[in-house]
């Protein structure tokens, strides 16, 4: 993940240093430490929670080995006297737009599930394929990557588990058998939650719409199975709390 710009369109960020309570890697979201026993001020987000999110880690390096810049790619804290204090730089703007690669699974780097239409739809509104899965994509987005409608995307308005997805605004041309589509549980302004992959660096795009941590989708970049992105903004930022 990376902060790509702010809501005002600029990429000038407020960057602050914070004390660590956990091991972090660059590009991951961090949240404020809520536990008194934590040794520092920030800790890891979880795959399903971005409560009190602080921002995105902007560079972290190994603490223990002095010449390890970039090797470990992680930074942790130490409870040993004499060690350097574990601190990390974080982009803290509440309006920072964060970009995450869409992953087709809980593990980062998984390609999105390819939907190959199995029944023609002359009206251009129905995509049939058991591979749509069981996690509801209602209010998500579907886009065509092969066939007469290539390059078009539509909001999913009906989801039938393991059977089909329906759009209200039809694709411009009829959907033929074997036309290929991709789907994701993200729709700008509508989606209010994003689930992260286990390494906290990508967005898990095979979960039901509305599942995950507090985040509002700003934009989606719809490309292929391994290079589509979602841009989102923290909905419960520590400096602008939802609750």
């Amino acid at each position, binding site marked *: *993940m*990376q*902060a*790509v710009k702010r809501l005002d369109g600029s*990429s*000038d*960020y*407020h*960057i602050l240093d914070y004390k660590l309570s956990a091991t972090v890697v*660059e*590009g991951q979201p961090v949240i404020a430490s809520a536990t008194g026993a934590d040794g520092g001020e920030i800790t890891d987000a979880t795959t399903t929670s971005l409560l009190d999110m602080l921002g995105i880690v*902007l*560079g*972290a*390096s*190994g*603490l223990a080995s*002095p*010449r390890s*810049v*970039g*090797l470990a*790619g992680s*930074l942790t804290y130490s409870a040993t006297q004499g060690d*350097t204090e574990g*601190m*990390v*730089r974080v*982009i803290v703007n509440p309006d920072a737009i964060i*970009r995450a690669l869409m992953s087709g699974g809980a593990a980062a780097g998984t390609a999105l599930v*390819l939907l190959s239409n199995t029944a023609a739809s002359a009206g251009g509104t129905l995509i049939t394929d058991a591979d749509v899965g069981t996690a509801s994509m209602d209010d998500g987005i579907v*886009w065509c*990557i*092969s066939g007469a409608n*290539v*390059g078009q995307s539509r909001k999913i308005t009906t989801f039938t588990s393991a059977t089909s997805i329906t759009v209200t605004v039809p694709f411009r041309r009829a959907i033929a058998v074997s036309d*290929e589509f991709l789907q994701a549980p993200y729709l700008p302004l509508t989606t209010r939650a994003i689930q992260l992959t286990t390494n906290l*660096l990508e967005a898990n795009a095979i979960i039901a719409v509305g599942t995950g941590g507090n985040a509002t989708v700003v934009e989606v*970049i*719809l*490309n*292929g199975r391994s*290079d*589509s*992105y979602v841009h989102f903004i923290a909905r419960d930022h520590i400096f602008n709390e939802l609750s």
Partner: protein
Amino acid sequence: MGLTIIVPRAWRTIDKVKSQLFPRRKATIPPAAWIGELMERRMGAVILCQPCIWKYGDWIKRLGYAKHPDIRSKGGRCDGCKQSYDLLPVLIAEEKRGRAEVTRAAMDAEHRRRLCPVPEGFTG
């Protein structure tokens, strides 16, 4: 004793101006210990003002840091001289780039592709 050929340096006006603006480190001052610690041990990203980038250029090169083309620190404080500026460049270790790295140029290319989101060479 070996032969030493001294070539007189030709001082241009710009060299003279720079030498006045950003004087070299004195021999009595240790060479950038704090910046070295920041770069080597603590941070994968450092914030430096332009004079300090020039001053610590050898460290920046040796440890493989480079200015991020897009990200800047707003209202930040230089790690070197501790002076606050409106905007400061952010230097990131080059080897840390990759997974999370993106530039505006790369995003521009994505947006151009959005009109036809099939990646080049896509065969389905």
